[in-house]
């Protein structure tokens, strides 16, 4: 009974559901962006998620990341798989406890239709966007400008070229605003998740009926 309620068929028209069901999405980083995007995509019935993070759950993560207090000290990838399976027991998830770099990204995300960039540092963001655009053929949905609180309407989703989308306000960083809030980072994460769903349905899986 409960399972039926959770099945995506109840929420999506069957063609949309079919397109999402045959899609593969990579999630690079399971922080405030990645953990929340993973949950949204699992609820949307994405065929397979490839999730990557080398870190463990810390107390300071719990104000914004999709983990729970009884998961402290454990690998984020393991905890995320548990949490996603509680949302959607049918979800197919491939986890990698690895530090992503320009060499392993094309291999780990080889089958992905789209990758969500969910890193916190600028060099890491630069590295994965450059790697995906120069060495791969899939789409990448990145984030820039999500720190602080309020100013919801300054957050936008922008198309930058053929294969790159960037969500965020482009300005507020963890350098200038010292706070990260679940609400504001959550808005950017949902911009990314929503952009990914739109890309999959309207562009990448356009031919799937």
């Amino acid at each position, binding site marked *: 009974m409960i399972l039926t309620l959770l099945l995506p068929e109840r929420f999506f028209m069957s063609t949309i559901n079919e397109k999402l069901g045959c899609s593969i999405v990579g999630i690079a*980083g399971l*922080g*405030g*962006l*990645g953990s929340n995007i993973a949950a949204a995509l699992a609820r949307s019935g994405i065929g397979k998620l490839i999730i990557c993070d080398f870190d463990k759950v810390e107390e300071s993560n719990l104000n914004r990341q999709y983990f729970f207090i009884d998961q402290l000290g454990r690998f984020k990838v393991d905890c995320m798989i548990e949490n996603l399976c509680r949302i959607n027991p049918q979800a197919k998830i491939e986890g990698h406890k690895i530090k992503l770099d320009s060499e392993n990204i094309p291999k780990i995300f080889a089958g992905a239709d789209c990758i969500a*960039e*969910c*890193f*916190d*540092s*600028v*060099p890491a*963001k*630069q590295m994965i*966007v*450059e790697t995906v*655009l*120069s060495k791969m053929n899939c789409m990448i949905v*990145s*984030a*820039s*400008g*999500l*720190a602080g609180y309020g100013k919801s309407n300054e957050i936008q989703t922008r198309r*930058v*070229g053929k294969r*790159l989308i*960037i969500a*965020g306000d*482009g*300005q*507020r*960083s*963890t*350098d200038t605003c010292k706070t*990260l809030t679940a609400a504001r*980072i959550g808005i950017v994460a949902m911009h990314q998740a929503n952009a990914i769903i739109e890309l999959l349905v309207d562009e990448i899986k356009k031919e799937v009926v």
Partner: protein
Amino acid sequence: MSILKINGLVSSFPEDKMPATIADLLLNLGIDSAAVVAELDGQIIERVKFSTTSLHHGQSIELIRFVPGG
């Protein structure tokens, strides 16, 4: 005068002030090369090639910048 289209906006440079490479342009603009993905005439230029990629009159360059947080 030499012209470069930077993020869709036309910039003019006197011949002797035209940045020779992507690295020179970023230096002129005060942009940290570690925070940028560059696309020159639709082609992604890897960061390691910024200082060896020449710029020429009439080219279009997109400089995609990131701020920390995630």
